């Protein structure tokens, strides 16, 4: 495979395209509403209405506006795409008939809706456009060019420099500078190094990585290959949770296709660079999203974290230097290589560069996936793109960062969404879950929900996380049942501090965050549930 061959594939594929393309979203969300039947019916209707010379029906990945799904988009009829929403399999005939000018009373979406208009797409640029199961589609939009450029025109150190220049920070949630991590792995001595892509997305309400893997698997593979070249690795592992079967099957197809074309394997682009990717399927433990636990799991051991240092960059998988990045981090790489680190650094804020994908869910009108530039005010996301709370209710709070994050009250909606600003509010960027709550939500219940989640997902290795989350959940239950006193609340706060500071890994260290942030902003909701202390005269002495 050389660049000419790649271009030839792209040209041939573009030439074979028909005038009108009917794109059917076949990501997990729309699939659950029978998108496969919709696509089959659309194909049937095209033939029945004798339009097959001009019309092709294409399977595509996530279009983003999940709350309005199943979605069907049509290109080549009007200047802008036509977007059909809430489609059922029996609507297929009418959609195809509309191509001939027939009127339909199907729901048609507005492509200029702020939900779409305010997005800046880098990671999700191909989502909803290309067929995730056809490598030719990916190549036709410039796929694997970045890998070629890196391999033939750049030294590994230049690749690292470009990533460093871009200012990209880890999209898994912690926000560690990606370039710095790559540089450390590149410098770590060792003949064998590994690349791991963390696709164990497990936060409640998060489905960003799932969508990227289902919609554009090659983008992630290419990003991993570039990373491997930069740090000197020849083996990658893609760790995907078993709950994402569609993502797994599309990745398997993608790896097979890339191997067949020589874009993965030995001597890629006729250079000495070799790179293979294997998929490892997680068995359903949230803690395996923690990097050291994930590596244990890849090694075939019980998925429990181990203390760091040593960091994976020095001693990771099988004791070798390992680069481990999140799906979204890898998905940013090709754009950075193609357009340059400076271009990427031009998007976002001073310390948070580029874009971030969020899964906007909860009590909000427009549910779905959005990709926005860093630094966008939270209000624009929630009120303009999301349309605010439904049923005339008020937005009360926005939860970011899942069980490791916190609840940001509505009064801080003007906060720019970047790593530092969210941290200052007691929440975190996290991997991109954004759950909106309206004024009917009880914040103590929310805190309890996340605590229960952490208790269930604690691996059981370290005592503070294992036994501490159990006690904190008990105390929250006691408060909710109106059986707790001030002393119990004090105990809860003391445990939050202890579990945060003494737990072994990020799961335990951040488990108290939902309690701490709701206590910070909604303390009155806790206090309203407290009972007077009838414990005895010693009570006053205790305080």
């Amino acid at each position, binding site marked *: 495979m050389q660049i000419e061959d790649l271009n030839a594939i792209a040209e041939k594929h573009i030439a074979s395209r028909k005038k009108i393309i009917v794109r059917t979203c076949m990501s997990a969300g729309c699939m659950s509403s029978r998108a496969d039947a919709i696509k089959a019916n659309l194909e049937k209707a095209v033939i029945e209405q004798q339009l097959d010379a001009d019309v092709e029906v294409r399977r595509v990945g996530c279009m983003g506006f999940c709350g309005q799904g199943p979605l069907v988009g049509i290109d080549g009829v009007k200047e802008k795409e036509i977007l059909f929403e809430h489609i059922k399999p029996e609507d297929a005939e009418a959609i195809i008939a509309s191509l001939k000018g027939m009127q339909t009373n199907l729901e048609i979406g507005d492509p200029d809706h702020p939900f779409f208009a305010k997005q800046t797409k880098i990671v999700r640029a191909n989502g909803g456009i290309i067929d995730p199961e056809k490598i030719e589609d990916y190549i036709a939009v410039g796929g694997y060019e970045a890998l070629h450029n890196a391999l033939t025109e750049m030294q590994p150190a230049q690749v690292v420099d470009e990533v460093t220049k871009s200012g990209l920070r880890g999209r898994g949630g912690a926000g560690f500078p990606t370039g710095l991590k790559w540089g450390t792995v590149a410098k770590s001595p060792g003949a064998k190094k590994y690349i791991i892509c963390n696709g164990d997305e497990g936060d409640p309400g998060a489905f960003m990585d799932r969508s990227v893997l289902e919609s554009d698997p090659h983008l992630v593979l290419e990003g991993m290959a570039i990373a491997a070249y930069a740090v000197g690795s020849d083996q990658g592992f893609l760790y995907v949770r078993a709950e994402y079967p569609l993502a797994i099957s599309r990745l398997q197809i993608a790896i097979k296709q890339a191997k067949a074309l020589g874009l993965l394997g030995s001597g890629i682009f006729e250079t000495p660079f070799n790179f293979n990717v294997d998929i490892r399927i997680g068995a359903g433990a949230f803690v395996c999203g923690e990097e050291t636990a994930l590596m244990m799991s890849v090694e075939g051991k019980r998925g429990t974290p181990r203390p760091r240092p040593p960091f994976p960059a020095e001693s990771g998988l099988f004791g070798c230097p390992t680069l481990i990045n999140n799906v979204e981090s890898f998905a940013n790489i090709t754009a950075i290589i193609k357009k340059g680190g400076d271009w990427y650094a031009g998007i976002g804020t001073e310390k948070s560069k580029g874009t971030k994908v969020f899964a906007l869910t909860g009590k909000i009108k427009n549910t779905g996936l959005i990709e926005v530039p860093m630094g966008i005010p939270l209000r624009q996301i929630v009120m303009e793109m999301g349309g605010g709370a439904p049923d005339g209710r008020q937005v009360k709070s926005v939860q970011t960062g899942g069980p490791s994050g916190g609840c940001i009250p509505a009064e801080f909606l003007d906060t720019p969404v970047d790593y530092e600003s969210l941290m200052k509010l007691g929440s975190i960027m996290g991997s991109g879950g954004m759950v909106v709550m309206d004024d009917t939500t009880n914040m103590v219940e929310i805190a309890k929900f996340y605590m229960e989640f952490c208790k269930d997902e604690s691996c059981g290795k370290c005592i503070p996380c294992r036994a501490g989350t159990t006690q904190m959940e008990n105390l929250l239950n006691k408060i909710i049942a109106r059986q707790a006193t001030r002393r119990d609340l004090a105990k809860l706060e003391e445990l939050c501090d202890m579990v945060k500071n003494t737990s072994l890994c990020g799961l335990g260290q951040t488990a108290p965050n939902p309690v701490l942030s709701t206590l910070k902003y909604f303390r009155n909701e806790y206090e309203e549930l407290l009972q007077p202390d009838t414990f005895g005269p010693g009570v006053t*002495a205790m305080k």
Partner: protein
Amino acid sequence: MERLKIATVWLGGCAGCHMSFLDLDEFLIDIADKIEVVFSPIADVKEYPEGVDVCLIEGAVCNADNLELIHKIRARTKVLVSFGDCAVTANVPAMRNQFGLANSESVLQRAYIENAQYNPVIPKADGIVPALLENVQPVHEVVHVEFFLPGCPPPADRIKALMIQVLAGQTPKLEGVQLKFG
């Protein structure tokens, strides 16, 4: 000098802690003029009096009587001392808690029906046999307790160490092996 009003009570426990208290032997004589035992299983007093200075509580809170008494004690006593492991940790009496929600029923069933050789019947006499609580609790989960004297039973020297500090008007503080459970 006015004598310190001391009470000792026996909730759900084996009386071992009180036996250990009696093991204080001649120390009891030494302190006899400094304390007045106003309520105790070894003194014939029916009603827990008002204005008690220190109460040593043996046993866990197991039944309705224990619960009523402990609240009365708290209201009428300045300083409560959890005396022995049953009071401090609920210990052996709380082992029934492991049997789940209906544990009080199942222990009675086991004791009075399954293991009975003659006349298997669960004793019931309202107002005489107190009902078992749903769960056995250590004393400090029910009322505030000032000091803890662990041990099963606490050896006499440990009780003595605490008593000396109390009588000297100090805040009792036990350390190291003096705090050993079991």
